């Protein structure tokens, strides 16, 4: 799967799991058209953890929605495993900032939802849900309704729900954006733990520079007006990412680099 295109010299990799090709997305505003994405190209390798960071309005959520198949690009295309994306699919799990748990279903039933849709028999459904509920540490709350859970627990449940249908790709749209700083750090560590025990290709959108560097193998920095890729920064820090890594000078250096790329961008065209 050598999906390298001439226009994307900075972001090419050999085996692209996700390949975004010269994608443009515009929205019609009152008197002008708003360019959310302008010629964005990005390849993500199998089992790679890529974070996308940028100022608001840089189109990072639009990019994720297009990869998820929830929005269609104005021009350009997105390939997953070499095939064009035409809509959402169970091989691409999505985790939303607002958790999007079904409030009338218990944690277990939420996790089972996708399996039920896929038509799995009840016993198998239960077994797999059990596994993922345990993986995110919610086994004591398996029969609780979402309204009784804290924000962090809700997001863990959403992660379990996305994992349960066994997607090869996880798309996460500022999943920890609504959480307090301490919970956020804890969930980042747990996410990496889950990811290292069950590897997936992850595209993680965030507006938090520390989070972007801590999680990623590669940080994509986007710029706004029009939304485009500004810089791609490799994070060659070892996994598992421990507190030690987080406090290391190497981490600090990378964080500063990403910070400068995010906050000192040349003015939009």
């Amino acid at each position, binding site marked *: 799967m050598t999906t390298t295109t001439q226009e994307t010299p900075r972001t090419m990799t050999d085996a692209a799991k996700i390949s975004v090709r010269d994608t443009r997305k515009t929205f019609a505003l009152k008197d002008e058209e708003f360019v959310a994405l302008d010629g964005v190209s990005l390849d993500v390798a199998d089992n790679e953890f890529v974070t996308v960071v940028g100022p608001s309005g840089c189109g990072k959520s639009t990019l994720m929605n297009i990869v998820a198949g929830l929005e269609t690009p104005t021009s350009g295309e997105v390939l997953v495993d070499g095939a064009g994306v035409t809509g959402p*699919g169970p091989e*691409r799990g*999505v985790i939303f900032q*607002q958790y999007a748990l079904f409030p009338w279903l218990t944690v277990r039933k939420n996790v089972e939802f996708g399996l039920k849709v896929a038509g799995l028999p009840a016993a198998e459904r239960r077994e797999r849900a059990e596994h993922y509920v345990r993986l995110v540490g919610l086994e004591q709350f398996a029969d609780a309704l*979402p*309204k009784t859970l804290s924000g962090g627990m809700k997001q863990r449940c959403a992660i379990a729900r996305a994992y349960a249908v066994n997607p090869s790709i996880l798309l996460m749209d500022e999943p920890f954006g609504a959480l307090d700083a301490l919970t956020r750090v804890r969930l980042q560590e747990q996410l990496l733990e889950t990811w290292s025990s069950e590897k997936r290709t992850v595209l993680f959108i965030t507006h938090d520079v520390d989070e972007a560097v801590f999680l990623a193998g590669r940080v994509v920095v986007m710029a706004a007006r029009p939304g485009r890729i500004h810089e791609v920064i490799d994070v060659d820090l070892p996994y598992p990412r421990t507190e030690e890594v987080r406090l290391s000078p190497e981490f600090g250096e990378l964080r500063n680099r990403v910070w400068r790329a995010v906050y000192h961008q040349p003015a939009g065209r």
Partner: protein
Amino acid sequence: MTTSTVSTPTAAKNGSPPRRRTGKRTTLLVLNTVSVVGGIGIWWLLALSGLQLPTPPEVLAKAVELAADGTLMEDLTASLGRVLAGFLLGSAAAIPVGFLMGWYTPARGLFEPWIQFFRTIPPLALLPLVLVLMGIGELPKVFVIFLAAFLACVISTYQGVVSVDRTLINAARVLGAKDGTIFLRVVVPASSPFILVGMRVGLGSAWATLVAAELLAAQAGLGSRMQQAQTYYDLATIFVSIVVIGVLGLVMDRLLLAAETKLTGWQERR
């Protein structure tokens, strides 16, 4: 009224900080009881003071009499039968129509003008027309009740469907759900609180319409009993009917409220 001023401070004292919630509930319950007993007391005083009202014991005696000779039961059956038939048919029709309106834009375009128009007309105002067209049997009464329940419920159901959180629908889509599944497993449960509120409003509206319809045209039923009693100046019977209508309305509302709490207890209260 003197009783209330005496018992309030003691009730308030029960609501001391350690068990504030239960204390508050007891206070409310005590106040409710005081209010009801006080109200009946005032009624009794007014009846004794020469106003042409029957006293509570007279009304009670009348109620026993009407229950004993079967009139009350007959009226109850007639009224409840009409209201339940109209209400159930109305809700049963309103829910699918409300869903269609919320889900398919063409359905909304076709139904909305009629619903908005008839919503502004009290169903009872259609009774003369309906009586002419449908005769004086059960049909016209059930029909206006149907209309009352339908109009209240259909708007609410429609509101419920259009206010379903888009991210929940997207969450279902990315988990592989197709339109049919999304409708049954996301849209229906997500709009159930709206439907139940609509049904409650519809029931209240149906009950009010029923009694008024019976006042105008019926041979049996709580409303028609009052109408007959009026011609004989039988105030006790009118009181019995009013109390029965109130109690039945309250019981039905509480039943729906209990169903609502049970079915939509998952809602996050903000």
